């Protein structure tokens, strides 16, 4: 564990120095496995936030109060600790670095998109990505400054944001971002992912162009 930061409440950013690492594709995840002294194990998957060119693997983990793994990562882990990880994993929810894409995130669902945005910057192809993010409040949004710098549309559901009142992501938000030929990636809670993908279908996005990653306290 090379670095542990807590830039937003109830979450933790982990920077891992992974021996013999295989480069990931933006959107892929790692499995973190914890082992108790008696051999009991618990493991969960977490999306990678870093770009492949980063010498470290960066994970961003939301702390769930009843989460067996996330509470350990958020409360106990310190730099210098060794963690058992496995990855990169997943071949579907990945961006190839060449296809135009619309990224729609709810809350901590931004993490795989941070990896995509950083990868686009590495490749000099930030023009390929459009980003829309829904968060309860700005203070709770991971990577808020980085996303804003990348031109992301940020919608806040529990407080006004700029001239916009509190409210959910609406079709009018996505219309200016969507173009035919884009692959749409949706990442968030099960409820957010369902609502956002139905929103995209309503705009006329073909179902085959929509890739969904759902997560939740139990996922």
């Amino acid at each position, binding site marked *: 564990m090379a670095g542990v930061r807590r830039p937003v409440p109830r979450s933790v950013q982990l920077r891992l120095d992974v021996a013999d690492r295989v480069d990931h594709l933006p959107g892929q995840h790692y499995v973190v496995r914890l*082992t108790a002294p008696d051999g009991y194990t618990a493991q969960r998957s977490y999306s990678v936030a870093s770009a492949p060119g980063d010498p470290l693997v960066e994970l961003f983990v939301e702390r769930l109060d009843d989460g067996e793994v996330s509470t350990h990562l958020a409360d106990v882990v310190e730099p210098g600790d060794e963690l058992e990880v496995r990855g990169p994993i997943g071949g579907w929810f990945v961006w190839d670095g060449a296809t135009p894409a619309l990224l729609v995130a709810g809350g901590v669902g931004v993490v795989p998109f941070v990896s995509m945005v950083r990868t686009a910057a590495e490749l000099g192809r930030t023009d390929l990505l459009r980003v829309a993010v829904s968060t309860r409040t700005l203070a709770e949004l991971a990577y808020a400054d980085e996303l804003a710098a990348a031109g992301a549309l940020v919608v806040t559901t529990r407080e006004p944001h700029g001239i916009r009142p509190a409210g959910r992501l609406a079709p009018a938000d996505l219309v200016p971002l969507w173009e035919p030929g884009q692959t749409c990636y949706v990442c968030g809670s099960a409820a957010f992912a369902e609502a956002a993908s139905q929103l995209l279908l309503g705009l006329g996005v073909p179902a085959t162009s929509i890739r969904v990653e759902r997560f939740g306290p139990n996922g």
Partner: protein
Amino acid sequence: MAGPTRGFLGRRRDRDPRLPPGQYDVGADWPVLTAEPTPRIVPETWSVTVDGRVGSPTTWTWAEVHRLPRSEYRGAIHCVTTWSRFDTWFAGVSVDTLLEAARPTDEARFVVATSKTGYTTNLPLEHVLGGKAWLVWEHDGRPLPVEHGGPVRLLVPHLYFWKSAKWVTRLTLLTRDQPGFWEQNGYHDLGDPWRQQRYQGD
């Protein structure tokens, strides 16, 4: 295998023996995990076809499949994302019943299940025979909700739940294995939770 993680004791000391390694009991929740938008399917226009290496390729409509002998599953389901859910109750028809009608040929060894969305998953034929697999349209006595694969999903509860294709419309029998959606994307070909066959190489 790595040694103990510093400071980690784990929470669950009295593990339910029904819980495969690396899984936890999710309780009454039933998480929704899919890779594509939820389709809207009207039961009256749904049908399921069994084809490929069979003597009698057969299609059943919603009404026809309900006239087949009812079969139920009561027990656990296990998701590769590490949750398990106990005491589930599903009802529908046994895959055995469909295959008795379609009559797999001698060279049939594998099955690919296809969903309305285009999602696919592959299974060795012996893993859907002998009372191990169902097409289900009822959960806890009520119609299977669309987000959980309704109107009809495949149910293969002895394997990780991605094998239980939602919104299933076709079972195709094959002579050779043909990896499905997740199986092409890094997940294990069989997916036995008791052997923790989560990813390729497990």
